[in-house]
């Protein structure tokens, strides 16, 4: 009984939330007012200053592809935003409970509070903003034949080898877009600037994107990598990063680098625009003429949050899913072989 949450305690918690949870509308008006009085700070050498640790947490759960019922509507209505704000408050309240109530059905996943949560509702119905239907453009015929690995959206999984699994499951890479698109944890982006360079240290896979600024040519097309070869420039206060020289057939544009793998012709154009003290508007145009019928664009905010920092990424020690999937598949084959022998 000690852990069961009483009605009185629930009411008290709800009352606290009623006092502390500002409606979405009030908050956005306040943010707009703060942004108005704010001017873009500069580094001592005169570049726009984007430094800090940022996270895409606020759009956790927002689908990459817009659900069909929203049609060409990108933004939630104010009323829908209030509902989403209420959802976040309820989620936060559930996260406070350390144990489940008796007889409640539980899965094998960790408790909800182990993941990261949005702090305010994402205003968008999808991460894709262009084309206007908010959906990934059609694949070219050749791209449809590319194998999607297990753990990246494959519906007919096999576990013959580790190579059947996604590069994310293998702790190798999520690609550039997969490393910033919001997922349930590991969304941190630490931006550090120096004269001639911007470096983005990413929490997941501890990728460090060292981005030279100012017209330096891309590496030879013979030099290719998972994260590509980025080059940056300033357009006003916006950091524009063009990345090419990707390895083909590795990660996709889905969350965690899932989906159909992109080709070696992939070119990403990212735009980082600081819109206030604690928010950057992130935008990326995905152009892969060997994979998609047309380029498309994804946008979402990344924010700076009190106390938020990148954690160390140590994927292999805990990557039991790989051992378990492979050994489980082998055990199943062995059992099937023995059963066949008995017949």
């Amino acid at each position, binding site marked *: 009984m000690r852990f069961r949450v009483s009605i009185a305690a629930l009411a008290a918690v709800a009352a606290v939330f009623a006092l502390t949870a500002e409606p979405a509308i009030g908050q956005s008006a306040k943010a707009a007012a703060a942004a108005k009085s704010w001017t873009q700070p500069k580094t001592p050498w005169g570049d726009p200053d984007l430094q800090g640790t940022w996270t895409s947490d606020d759009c956790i759960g927002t689908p990459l592809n817009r659900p069909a019922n929203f049609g060409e509507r990108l933004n939630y209505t104010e009323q829908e935003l209030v509902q989403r704000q209420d959802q976040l408050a309820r989620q936060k309240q559930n996260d406070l409970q350390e144990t489940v109530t008796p007889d409640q059905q539980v899965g094998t996943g960790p408790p909800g509070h182990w993941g990261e949560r949005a702090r305010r509702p994402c205003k968008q119905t999808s991460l894709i903003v262009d084309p206007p239907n908010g959906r990934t453009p059609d694949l070219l015929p050749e791209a449809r034949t590319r194998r999607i690995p297990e753990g990246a959206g494959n519906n007919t999984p096999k576990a*013959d*080898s*580790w*190579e059947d699994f996604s590069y994310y499951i*293998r*702790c*190798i*890479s999520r690609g550039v877009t997969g490393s910033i698109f919001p997922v349930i944890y590991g969304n941190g982006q630490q931006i550090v600037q120096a004269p001639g360079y911007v470096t983005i240290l990413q929490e997941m896979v501890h990728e460090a994107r*060292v981005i*030279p600024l100012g017209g*330096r*040519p891309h*590496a030879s097309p013979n*030099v290719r*990598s*998972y*994260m590509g070869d980025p080059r940056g420039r300033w357009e006003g206060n916006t950091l524009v990063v063009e990345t090419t020289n990707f390895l083909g057939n590795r990660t996709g544009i889905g969350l965690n680098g899932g989906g159909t793998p992109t080709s070696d012709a992939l070119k990403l154009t990212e735009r980082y625009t600081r819109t206030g003290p604690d928010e950057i508007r992130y935008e990326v145009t995905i152009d892969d003429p060997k994979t998609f019928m047309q380029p498309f664009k994804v946008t979402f905010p990344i924010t700076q949050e009190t106390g938020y920092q990148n954690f160390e990424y140590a994927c*292999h020690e805990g990557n039991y899913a*790989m*051992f378990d999937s*492979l*050994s489980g*598949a*082998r055990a199943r*084959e062995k059992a099937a072989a023995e059963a066949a022998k008995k017949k």
Partner: protein
Amino acid sequence: MVRAGDRSGNFQTENTHVVERFTLGDADHINYEPTIVDKTIYTRPWRIGTVFYRRKEKNAQINEFKCVEFVEELIYGDLKKK
């Protein structure tokens, strides 16, 4: 827990305290001197001294390091379908 601290077989534990000193010797050299203190495994503090050289090649840049694909056979090899 005692773990391998480096590729030379030296150890480190959760008690290991490292102070690294990066000193510019001249425009293109950094003297790198880490001091390692861990009373639970070493009888006294010890120090490493080495020099970092600036890469002077035009357009020198650090390449991507993706090690995993080269060690998966070692980690999971016995679990692969024969």
